[in-house]
């Protein structure tokens, strides 16, 4: 299918909740996903969601590249979302032009599973360049735009917005529940935009409705 890139991988099992929105009922890999967030808390939620998605795509020992503008990602926090923090290489650059160049070069490198790029603005032309890069390499790109000036049209396959949702806790017990998100798939090429309320159990995406079957992983604490 045009623009969907190399669909070399078998559909990722863990992404089944989202599959129905996409053509051929498979989460598009070898494509660019665009995420937009505006607040610090939303940015964190978006990062968590992206990390969870990548953990489902990545194979054992797979490498990913994370291009950042500000050093705020905290590697131990990624572990909860199923990523091996030491299998991620962070590249920090404050210049957007350099960041775009690195993202494009990284997307051309077949050896990577995923490339996460944190940039503010992405023009249509730049997004087409990135799209062309992934169509040849099959790398999945995640572009996280934090506080962009406009939500301009880009050549990415999808556009997502993630906002946190209050976590559900059974029986009114104290404490904070699992990460829950309102996932909005605003645009998807050849698919149906959709929205989900979903939470992350520490291993899998769980629709928020049947959340109470899952024991939160965070509470498995070791003492001493």
């Amino acid at each position, binding site marked *: 299918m045009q623009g969907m890139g190399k669909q070399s991988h078998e559909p990722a099992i863990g992404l089944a909740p989202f599959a129905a929105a996409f053509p051929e009922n498979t989460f598009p890999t070898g494509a660019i996903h665009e995420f937009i967030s505006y607040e610090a808390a939303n940015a964190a939620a978006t990062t968590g969601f992206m990390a969870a998605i990548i953990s489902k795509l990545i194979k054992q020992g797979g490498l990913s590249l994370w291009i950042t503008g500000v050093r705020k990602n*905290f590697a131990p926090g990624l572990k909860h979302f199923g990523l091996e923090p030491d299998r991620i290489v962070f590249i920090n650059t404050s210049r957007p032009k350099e960041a775009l160049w690195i993202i494009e070069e990284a997307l051309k490198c077949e050896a990577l599973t995923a490339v996460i790029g944190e940039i503010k603005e992405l023009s249509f032309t730049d997004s087409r360049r990135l799209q062309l890069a992934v169509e040849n390499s099959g790398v999945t790109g995640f572009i996280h735009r934090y506080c962009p000036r406009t939500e301009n049209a880009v050549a990415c396959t999808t556009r997502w917005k993630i*906002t946190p949702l209050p976590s559900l806790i059974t029986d009114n017990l104290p404490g904070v529940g699992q990460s829950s998100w309102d996932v909005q798939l605003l645009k998807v090429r050849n698919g149906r935009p959709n929205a989900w309320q979903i939470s992350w159990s520490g291993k899998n995406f769980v629709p928020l409705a049947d959340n109470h079957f899952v024991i939160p992983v965070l509470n498995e604490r070791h003492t001493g």
Partner: protein
Amino acid sequence: MPRYASIAFPFLLTEYAARKQPELCGKAFVMASRQRGRMVIDAVSMQAAKKGIANGMVLADCKAVFPELGMMETEPGRTEKILQALAEWSIMYTPYAAVDLPDGLLLDISGCAHLWGGEEAYLEHITAKLNSYGYTIQAAIADTIASAWAVARFAEPMTIVKQGKQRDALQSLPPAALRLEATILARLKKLGMRQIGNFINMPSSALRRRFGKELPKRIAQALGTDVEWIVPVQPVEPYQERLSGMEPIASAIGITIALQQLLEMICARLQTEGLGLRNAVFRCYRVDGIVQQLDIGTGHPSRNTTHLFKLFEHKIATLEPALGFEVFVLEAPKVEPVTDEQAAIWNAATQNDKKVAELLDRVTAKIGPGAVSRYLPAEHHWPERSIKQAVPLWEKPVTEWRKDLPRPIHLLPVPETIEVSAVLPDYPPMLFRHKGTRYSVAKADGPERIEQEWWLSYGLYRDYYVVEDDKGARYWLFRSGPYDGDYPKWFLHGFFA
């Protein structure tokens, strides 16, 4: 033809002292040290020397004649230090600069003098420089170390002995100019040999019979028939390794082994110096005198043997060993400093990592080192210290990532202050205000107390709370220190997904 310059400092110690204490300039003073219960003069100033005071005299005798004579205690080892410093300074004139104890410097100036417009100008330049520092010097240039030494100390000042003329130059000098032992000098004097010319043309066997083997050796050194080396203060090492075979090597396997050994040798050296080579030349000296060579170049400074060998590998077939090569030489004419990230590239575990490493190499080349980082768990509880940079980039983690404690996905580099109201002390906050926005806390978890690691830093402990506001956004807050009547400070430190 090598050329050597010898520089003698007749008043080294006293001039150094005058340099440090300008009021001593132009004064007659000596440096003396205690020997066998009396003060013996070690060094004299020029003014003192004019009054006839020489090294080795007893201070008391000199004081009796010149009561105004100044005296300073000699500092042991000072001469060596000054000469070492001067030798390092003179590297700007030649890479081969050496200390010539007890009182001078020795420079191998082969191929250097023309840069200053000839040997006269070269010597004048050095003299003028040293004079401006306050040192009186006697310098000379000759073909051999020994003749330069002799001419500098015993001939006219600033003598330049023309190429091959050292025999003529030495003729009229006293035998002491040959650096001989006192016993030999005494015997020569007894025999009436007051000039080198008296005996320089005698057969060496005759001289050896009468004076031992030292005299003919010194003469040979002065004339250049015997070799003499200088040991430069800083070794001048081109990046070159040499391997000679026991027998001529004609097989490709033999050449491969030789090349690998040479690469290992040169890379080990580059490793210690933090360098990588940008191009390399592999020379093979054939038995019949023909030299064949292979050249390679690398895009980035590299000192990885496997990588470099791969570059050479397909070229080995172009060599024509015929009867065999007897000597192999590997040179690295161009070397550059290499950062650790680059060094690790070819040790990467898998093919995939190698491609990524190449990508990162390009990124590093583009945006400079320090931008690429990979994090490993560190065994610290304090959040800021719980991760460390992987150095080199592909360093393996030595401990597990901890999963048992909640850690935010975004951590603020510096915790930001917030205003908080809590129901009770030690309870999680009810609401907090950050940058003018009010957040009301709906759910909270904690506290998780993290103590200061006293062996690293002092300060208050932190009580961390995971809180969720009414919209579902999750924050990592902490209270710094205890409640003790005073209002403790609260901070926002991170965001959970």
